[in-house]
């Protein structure tokens, strides 16, 4: 497919007098896994908030799939267009079962898009992919932290999003769980999908990312391969070297 999946064009976000994102421009292509890294407060999560419609930029625009302007669209409209994210803090519905989560993600809107049969097979497929098939009937409140992370990833990917954003998918996970998550993310890579990952675990980022963008104080500091990022003096200065 190719082409630009997400175009962030000169976006500025301010909270009071604090400038969280400062005239940032960024393009993410279909088919790539892009990592957003940088120190705390660099604007990574805020950028995801802008893309998913939770935060409104003061200026600039966000284009999806070259043609669609999603800058002022509602959260639900953006999600329905195929741009979905996992939150930093695992966000699940404590009162619902694992299976119901995936069904909510797969149906992806008040109006049903899948028949009951399609829905069931899609849910089974996703449960298999995130490795929670044997816990399908469990309430989400009983899951361990890592399982909640996967459940949320499953919920987000169940609708086959075109842009998949993962905010700290391996935070708080064991090494083995991180390993499995890396394999999962790699398996989600497709030519017609862009994956954006925010993460502090550099080994994880190196394993999954095609390219990295280093943010610092709301601006792009570096863009390129992880190997080059490690070699870049400014990146080492503000982030990696600490």
């Amino acid at each position, binding site marked *: 497919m190719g082409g630009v999946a997400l175009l962030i064009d000169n976006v500025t976000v301010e909270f009071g007098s604090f400038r969280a994102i400062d005239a940032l421009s960024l393009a993410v292509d279909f088919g790539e896994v892009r990592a957003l890294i940088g120190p705390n407060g660099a604007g990574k999560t805020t950028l995801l908030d802008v893309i998913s419609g939770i935060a409104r930029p003061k200026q600039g625009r966000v284009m999806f799939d070259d043609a669609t302007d999603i800058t002022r669209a509602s959260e639900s409209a953006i999600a329905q267009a195929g741009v979905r994210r996992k939150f930093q803090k695992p966000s699940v519905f404590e009162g619902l079962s694992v299976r119901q989560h995936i069904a*909510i993600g797969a149906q992806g809107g008040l109006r049903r898009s899948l028949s009951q049969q399609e829905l069931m097979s899609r849910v089974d497929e996703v449960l298999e992919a995130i490795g929670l098939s044997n816990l399908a009937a469990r309430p989400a409140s009983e899951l361990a932290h890592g399982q909640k992370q996967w459940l949320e990833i499953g919920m987000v990917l169940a609708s086959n999003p075109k842009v998949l954003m993962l905010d700290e998918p391996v935070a708080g996970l064991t090494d083995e769980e991180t390993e499995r998550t890396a394999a999962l993310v790699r398996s989600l890579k497709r030519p017609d999908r862009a994956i954006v990952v925010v993460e502090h675990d550099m080994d994880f980022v190196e394993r999954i990312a095609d390219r990295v963008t280093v943010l610092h104080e709301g601006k792009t500091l570096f863009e390129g391969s992880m190997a080059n990022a490690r070699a870049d003096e400014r990146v080492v200065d503000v982030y990696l070297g600490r």
Partner: protein
Amino acid sequence: MKPLTQDFPFLSLLAALLVVAFVLTTSGVAPFGVSAYLANAIGQLAAFAVLALALDLIWGYLGILSLGHGLFFGIGGYVVAMHLLKHSHEVTGKVPDFMQFMGWTEFPFYWAGFDFFPYALIVTVAVTLLISGIFGYVSFRSRVGGVYFAIITQALVYVAMLLMFRNDTGFGGNNGMTGFAVVFGRPIGGSGVVIAMAAVSVIVLGLTLLGCRMLLASRFGMLMIAARDDEVRLRTLGYETLRLKLAVWCLSALIAALAGMLYVPQVGIINPRLLAPELSLEIAVWVAIGGRGHLVGAVIGAVLVNAVKFWLSAAAPELWPFILSGLIVLVVLVFPNGLVDLAKLKLVRPMGVKRLASETPELR
């Protein structure tokens, strides 16, 4: 939600309601029948239980606390009172008290048609939907939630109370409306009529309970719980929660209005005190005591608290505020899920035991 056949508390409650309805309907002929006085009390409790279900639906399953549900209860109550007065006037020629006080000889023009019960029913639905719809749309659209929403609903019911206290509006003013003589052509005080109204209330309660459960077991109910647990998460999965919340809010208001329509004919009077913040707060207390987010809990909470209140209002009325506040403190501190916690005590360890076991080693 458990499948219906395995939901033992729900089935027991439904069976109990069936038995009560059966005993009530056969009271005229059976030797084990109940007195009109007891039937009336049962009928009022059933109406309160319906009201508690209305609040539990929006608070327990969607996480939106309303401290103004007395408003919708009052709408149902006022409209049914208007119907009863107009109907009584038609049958007996009796002029309502409030018109005599005001020196009016005929009904204000907007009372036209209320002698016809289906019209009163339509007006109840229309007014309830209009007020809940506009208020809900404006609030949910501007994403007002939590404690702010609760305070605004409280203000709303207070404003309604002040409005109804005015004597020149033609809705009874501070004296309210009373002196209902007939209902559906029969004398309202006859023991057969009293028992019939109670039976209808119990049956309506059973149907409301069943209806709420069916709603919650559906896909819609699943989305309600999702919106309660994490609304932003649900929205960013492509669900416009505004419509969902508005639909449940209006449905809850309608159920509350229905409860008011059941309540007022049985208690025989409506006045603006029904719109006082106290009642609206009390509804939340019933639900909290019974167990928020459990239909059975809401019903039991409403019945239990009001049964105690009925009994105490005769025995020791001055004790009631202390008992009610004591219950609230107990629920907040010890049983955050109300009586549902009490029911689970046998199965799980009390909170304190676990905490002590984990803390003691650190103390040593």
